[in-house]
């Protein structure tokens, strides 16, 4: 990557996408190490297998027990392959829901971290109901009674991201992106030319700023100068502040208020006119 000044406000959308995908960008396990104590990963969906593209577990955040659900990309080629490049299979989403239900049962808040190119498109994923797994998570997350705080740390790849992205608060890192389709996929379909990805990225309005403008995210979390990959510790510290504040806000609400607020948050998304 060749970026002179990575984070000016007017940076091209495709450069944000590149930063979100930066191979030195901190991933969920890095943030977990920096932000939480007593982390124990909880594996498997109790149905088929343990999907390494999704991390779930229990930990303490500033002393307080919380559940964590996150996508996990791999750092080197070997780990990338093992983690399927952070592309979950249905079993990953079912593991995520299992742990979220566990948190709900014992009244612990849920913190999710999004960073995925998308849900895995493969034969086995389709056979085991990729669509069904995502759909069920969307429905169930809308009614899980404990606070859910969502942070988009890198790539928000469509339904594969949203499947752990329904919550009371949805924040995004300054160089994070969130999109209905990858710029490359969009370019291939609409322009019949994957080389049009930069144009597609701009058209899709994938950047944090645009997402805030359209009411998709609540707040933009600033990154250290140059981007989160330049200083993991500082990035984690900043995120920690936002998590603490978001949790405190959701804590104040009764279950009924919280669920109503969460419902209305998504209810009002969309743009149309009455004629």
């Amino acid at each position, binding site marked *: 990557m060749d970026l002179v000044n990575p984070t000016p406000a007017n940076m091209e959308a495709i450069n944000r996408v590149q930063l979100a995908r930066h191979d030195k960008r901190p991933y969920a396990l890095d943030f977990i190490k920096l932000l939480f104590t007593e982390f124990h990963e909880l594996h498997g969906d109790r149905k088929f297998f343990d999907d390494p593209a999704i991390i779930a577990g229990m930990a303490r955040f500033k002393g307080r027990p919380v559940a964590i659900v996150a996508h996990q990309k791999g750092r080197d080629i070997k780990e990338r392959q093992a983690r399927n490049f952070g592309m979950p299979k249905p079993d990953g989403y079912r593991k995520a829901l299992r742990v979220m239900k566990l948190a709900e049962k014992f009244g612990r808040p849920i913190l999710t971290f999004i960073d995925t190119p998308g*849900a895995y498109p493969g034969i086995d994923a389709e056979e085991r109901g990729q*669509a069904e797994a995502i759909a069920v998570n969307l429905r169930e997350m*809308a009614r899980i009674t404990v606070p859910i705080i969502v942070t988009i740390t890198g790539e928000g790849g469509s339904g594969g991201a949203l499947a752990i992205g329904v919550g009371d608060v949805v924040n995004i890192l300054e160089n994070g992106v*969130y999109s209905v389709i990858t710029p490359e996929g969009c370019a291939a379909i609409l322009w019949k030319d994957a080389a049009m990805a930069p144009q597609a990225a701009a*058209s899709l309005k994938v950047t944090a700023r645009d997402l805030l403008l359209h009411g*998709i995210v609540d707040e933009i979390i600033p990154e250290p100068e140059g981007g989160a990959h330049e200083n993991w510790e500082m990035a984690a510290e900043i995120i920690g502040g936002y998590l603490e504040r978001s949790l405190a806000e959701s804590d104040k609400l009764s279950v009924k208020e919280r669920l109503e607020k969460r419902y209305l948050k998504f209810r009002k*998304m*969309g743009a149309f*006119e009455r*004629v």
Partner: protein
Amino acid sequence: MSWFKRQTDKIGEIAPPEERTVKTEGIFVKCDNEDCGATIYRKDLKENLNVCPTCGYHFRITARERLQLLFDDGKYDERDTGIAPTNPLEFVDKSPYEVRLKKAQKATGLLDALITGEGRIGGVRTVVCAMEFNFIGGSMGSVVGEKITLAIEYCIDQRLPLIIVSCSGGARMQEGALSLMQMAKISAALARLDDHRLPYFSLMTNPTTGGVTASYAMLGDLNIAEPGAIIGFAGARVIEQTIRQKLPKGFQRSEFLLEHGMLDAVVDRRELKQFFVDALAFVCPDK
């Protein structure tokens, strides 16, 4: 001097080649199923609910035809009309989104890709949302999301059963993340419908893919499909490019999903109405 005199020298313009053929278009149609290819008398096809009488191939039907097929006597009241799409992202690809919308609106006579109807099915008051594939591939944008959510909220308010007929390539790219969020919005509304113990049946027709499958289409109390429909999350081409191998025959067809436990039933269109009548009787309180 001849008795008959030609007014002009020429016999007249020779008919262009395309007019020299006998026109059968509109009278006969060829079955879309490549293995069948039967020539079908159009009237026969229509009487057979647009199912090929030879091979049982289900032709795609419009949202209006779908509502007429499901409601008693084909009668229903349309709900939530007058909700129109905008271009929130000012999206431009090869053709501006506004132009695509205008074209689709002109072609279908609809404002967007979904019609909501309220009527009776087997005498039971029911709300049906039907997607229109001819409107930008039945793609789900803000209008589809809003209309389905309004339909769900209306069902909760009136305590009515809901049927959604999906026919869609997925979320509408031209509305970006706003389209994506319709998945969460509708699913959240369906959670409420479920909390109120009200029935929702999802019917998947050819095709039902992407964000539509990964939200409301798979969340029915009953998830059923017409025969031979393509149903899936990722598109076949994307999967082929990812795994670099050919897909098995029948992959992502209704029967494939049934075999893998993803559907309650595959129901022939000619038996669909009766299926819903019976299913509604099963879920509605006894009178």
